[in-house]
């Protein structure tokens, strides 16, 4: 237990020292929020109703698909993995610490967005904050599980960068946060539903069974993929 607590606290500190994670978890999402928040709410004032969930989905997706997996590849795609095993540091501890630390960073980002959006752009707060945070937590966990698949599957940073974009871009473009999903052709809606962003966006706007099932299905697939990739890592 002591090792788990120390390992997680250490990962938190390492994340704060890492410019890459700060850029993808804070700087870029907040810049995007500052820019797009202004544009969206000026061009379409009705966007004030959905600004908080849309910006949160964008920020969490970026942190989970682009930020967090780089920390995983740094360990699992290099000699660090071997050294940790040699040093008696369980590989599972690193995975757990990275996921937990990223979860906390993404929660902080979401709180910043939640506080800043009404102040700067007059955005509406969610009707129920506890339900919003429950939806946010579920969406973040599912996104991180998919990010973990990317981090464990990629053998190096350059491949990860490519694959992460393949997940991140359609996730954002087809989730409904940039424009309503019902304006998209049916195949693109189906494609968008393969990513957690579409379901997370709906869940944050109102708790429902369908988004929960959608996220649950993605989580189940991601966990299964993680188990298979983990076995490969262990070998």
């Amino acid at each position, binding site marked *: 237990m*002591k*090792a788990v607590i*120390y*390992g997680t606290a*250490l990962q938190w*500190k*390492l994340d704060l*020292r*890492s410019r890459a994670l700060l850029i993808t978890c804070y700087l870029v999402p907040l810049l995007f929020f500052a820019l797009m928040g202004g544009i969206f709410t000026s061009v379409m004032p009705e966007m004030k109703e959905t600004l908080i969930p849309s910006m949160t989905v964008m920020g969490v997706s970026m942190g989970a698909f682009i930020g967090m997996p780089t920390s995983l590849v*740094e*360990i699992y795609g*290099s*000699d*660090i993995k*071997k*050294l940790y*095993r*040699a*040093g*008696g*540091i*369980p590989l599972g*501890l690193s995975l757990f610490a990275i996921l937990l630390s990223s979860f906390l960073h993404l929660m902080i980002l979401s709180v910043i967005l939640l506080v800043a959006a009404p102040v700067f752009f007059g955005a509406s707060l969610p009707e129920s904050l506890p339900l919003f945070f429950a939806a946010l937590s579920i969406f973040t966990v599912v996104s991180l599980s998919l990010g973990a698949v990317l981090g464990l599957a990629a053998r190096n940073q350059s491949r990860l960068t490519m694959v992460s974009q393949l997940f991140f871009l359609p996730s954002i473009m087809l989730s409904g946060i940039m424009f309503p999903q019902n304006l998209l052709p049916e195949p693109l809606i189906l494609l968008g539903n393969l990513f957690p962003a579409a379901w997370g966006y709906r869940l944050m706007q109102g708790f429902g069974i369908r988004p929960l099932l959608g996220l649950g299905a993605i989580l189940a697939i991601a966990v299964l993929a993680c188990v298979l990739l983990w076995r490969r890592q262990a*070998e």
Partner: protein
Amino acid sequence: MNNQTAIRISDLRKSYGNHAVLRGLDFSIEKGEIFALLGVNGAGKTTALECMEDLRRFDHGSIVINGRIGIQLQNSALPGHIMPMEVLKLSASCHKTSISPDLVDSLGIRAFEKTQYARLSTGQKRRLMLALALVHDPDILFLDEPTAGLDVEGRSLLHWQIRRLKSRGKTIILASHDMAEVEALCDRIAILHQGTIAFCGTPSALTEETGAQYAIRLTTKQGTIRHTTNNITDTLLALLTDFRKKNIPVLDIQVDRGTLEEHFLKFARRTEQ
């Protein structure tokens, strides 16, 4: 396996696809000795070490280890932003122990404890890796190329550390390309050739095995004479008696039987043929 044996390896086999890397290794390492694993590139040293270190699965055979192990890997890396004391604390907490101040002081870790790993010099990284291997006070220590990339001072310091560990009863398994290092430190060596043990014994036994002759260099006021012989006692006695009879004072005597590197190369060439 008796109580004095630290590691016993029996019929160890390992293949990568159709390529057999280890073809039935059999040897044992005694407690408290420094044992070197030698061989040309591709002989199977790293695979054998990694099997012993439980970092690689093997196909057949057995490895019995009598004690806790510590491992210093050849190619080591850590997250660039981590600091030495942080990774030592992490390893110590995983081993349910605490960091010994003596360990930190003797390896000079304090001098760079607040420096991030990416900014450490090669020597500092090597010392940190050794500290990581020792943090849980293991009985058996694996050192893979411990002085690679170090300057003379760094090598000397690390050699002193290794001797200090031996004096404390640690068993040390060393893999090194530096024959001078092996000769200076090791009690016994094993030479791997194409996945089998071609030789296992003391460095002087290897010299005997290769049939190296003694080279005697004797200096007098009249000059230097050189002799090669298999019988050092008789030859030296005869030479000295002769000089005494002629009343020629001997100024210097040097006896050399070649370096471990020369014997290893000779042995490797012979085995290859």
